[in-house]
């Protein structure tokens, strides 16, 4: 099977997952008894005519299955409703925040994968030594750290006590920039701590899986062959071990994108970073359910797409899975 054919076959389950997310959203926010939109109409002081009018405006007087169809139609036409608090379309709010999240998450993810695989490879290579047990224990330690707490500690020590970095936000509020360079350095100063926090909490899992993957590969016969041929150890690690050990890691990256989302929600909340995770927190606090619903949809879609990409990347790296 070619890569394109394989891609087409993988798109279908992704679409099914997308439909499931839409259905789940509908179930949680519209169909469950006591759902937020039903509560909108429960004000006892409201005259019955007005209640009927509102119910009609929101489409709440239609049967549930019709509401579901409306909902699906609206999602596919990019209409996620209007924020109950900000009174702007949810789509606008969510897409703005999603871009900010990507600015934070992309470098942190790449950094954590690079550092994590490096530590994991070294640990697997130097098996049984002090480095291995130290690397394994510290990987498990950073993996166990709550991201929100690490963020709090960093803010307290490096931003409040030392004053090296700003405590929150994405840029300084109301700042007039002299040029693009000044803007970028301000942005960088704000991004520094959240990026480090997110990188640290994510890299543990990559180091752990890379270590066990390297150990597995080292036990393979072709490594023995390479050794028997008299290749240098560093060459064997680089050309034979590392490449093959990467495969399980790519699968893990795909499976654990949810962890990146979780880390981003916590990090953004603590640093008041205007990303989609902070939007979830804010809409929780203000009970802005249309935004909460839209944010969940946007997050899920991003995860589904990212998952599809890693899936295809894996198929590109390892043609065997295409058959």
């Amino acid at each position: 099977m070619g890569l394109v054919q394989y891609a087409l076959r993988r798109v279908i389950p992704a679409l099914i997952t997308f439909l499931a997310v839409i259905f789940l959203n509908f179930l949680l926010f519209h169909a469950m008894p006591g759902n937020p939109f039903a509560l909108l109409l429960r004000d006892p002081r409201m005259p019955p005519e007005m209640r009927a009018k509102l119910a009609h405006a929101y489409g709440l007087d239609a049967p549930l299955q019709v509401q579901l169809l409306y909902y699906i139609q609206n999602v596919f036409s990019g209409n996620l409703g209007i924020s109950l608090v900000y009174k702007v379309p949810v789509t606008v709010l969510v897409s703005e925040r999603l871009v900010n999240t990507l600015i934070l998450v992309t470098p942190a993810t790449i950094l954590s994968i690079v550092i994590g695989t490096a530590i994991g490879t070294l640990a697997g290579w130097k098996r049984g030594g002090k480095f291995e047990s130290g690397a394994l224990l510290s990987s498990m330690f950073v993996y166990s750290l709550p991201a929100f707490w690490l963020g709090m500690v960093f803010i307290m020590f490096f931003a409040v006590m030392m004053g090296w970095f700003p405590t929150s936000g994405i840029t300084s509020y109301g700042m007039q920039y002299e040029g693009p360079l000044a803007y970028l350095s301000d942005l960088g100063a704000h991004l520094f701590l959240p990026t480090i926090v997110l990188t640290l909490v994510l890299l543990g899992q990559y180091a752990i899986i890379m270590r066990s993957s390297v150990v597995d590969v080292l036990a393979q016969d072709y490594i023995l062959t390479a050794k028997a041929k008299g290749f240098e150890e560093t060459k064997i690690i680089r050309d034979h071990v590392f490449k093959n050990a990467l495969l399980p890691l790519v699968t893990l990256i795909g499976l654990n994108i949810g962890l990146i989302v979780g880390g981003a929600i916590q990090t953004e909340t603590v640093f008041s970073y205007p990303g989609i995770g902070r939007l979830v927190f804010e809409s929780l606090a203000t009970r802005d359910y249309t935004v909460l619903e839209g944010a969940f949809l946007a997050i899920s879609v991003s995860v589904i797409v990212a998952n599809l990409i890693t899936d295809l990347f894996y198929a590109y790296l390892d043609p065997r899975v295409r058959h």
Partner: protein
Amino acid sequence: MYAEKFTIYRKQFGALWDVFRANSLGMIGLIVLATFVIMALIGNFFTPYETAGVGTFAEILNPPSWAHPFGTDDVGRDVLSQVLKGAGVSLLVGMLAATISLAVGATIGLLSGYYRGILGIVLVRFTDIFLIIPALPLIIILAALLGSNIWNVIFVIGILGWPGTARIARSQTLVIRELPYTLRARSLGASEHHIILRHVLPGILPLLFANTVLVIGSAILSEATISFLGLGDPTRLSWGTMLNFAFSRGALFAGAYWYVIPPGVCIALIVLAFTCLGYALDEVLNPRLRKS
């Protein structure tokens, strides 16, 4: 007969314990965990100070002293007493939520691996969908809609933590259903019911056990996170709730490290204990991983 069986079990357990004891990661996990269990017991029966109510004005955000080894919080309550109380909440939520995840995950995984027909396909798709949908946002939304109550928190975390367990249960079931002893039982006319309960389930449980220990760790982390976001049970002080108060009431800007560090270190250590323990158990119970 039973005495004989008991001796065999004890010998088997003794052999496993010897393998486990040689695993330093596992022993670290066990010791740390034991410390937290003792902490939870102390916190349940005796705390140096009352954790309900408020202190006097002079007691607000006091740094550590002999009277308050971990200082006081933003309303003058003793931090150490709160930290002691939090251990019980974490252990309770972690264990119960992981049990729910185990029950749901094992059932779905086993059935999806055992039945190849339409039921199997539907369950596999269902698992795949929940593997992809990010858990934390869903936990947050469900917890917000259901309301802040510790049983709701346990239910939500448990009911959304099963897909990983289901995946392992399924792949193990696929192996066991083709093993000679299962085939033998089937050809002897054993019922599906019998095969699943007496042959497949006992075969997959050891691996699921190691996994469930890891799930306890992530359940504790989830509880801390949603409590930090303000969705915890306000009547039960957990470490996450403490950090929520510390964050929202300016402990960071007051530099009150004594209020911020202890609960976070406790969360990290208890999760680390379960993580180490889970990995060690996996090595002990999964013969393929055992170091030769």
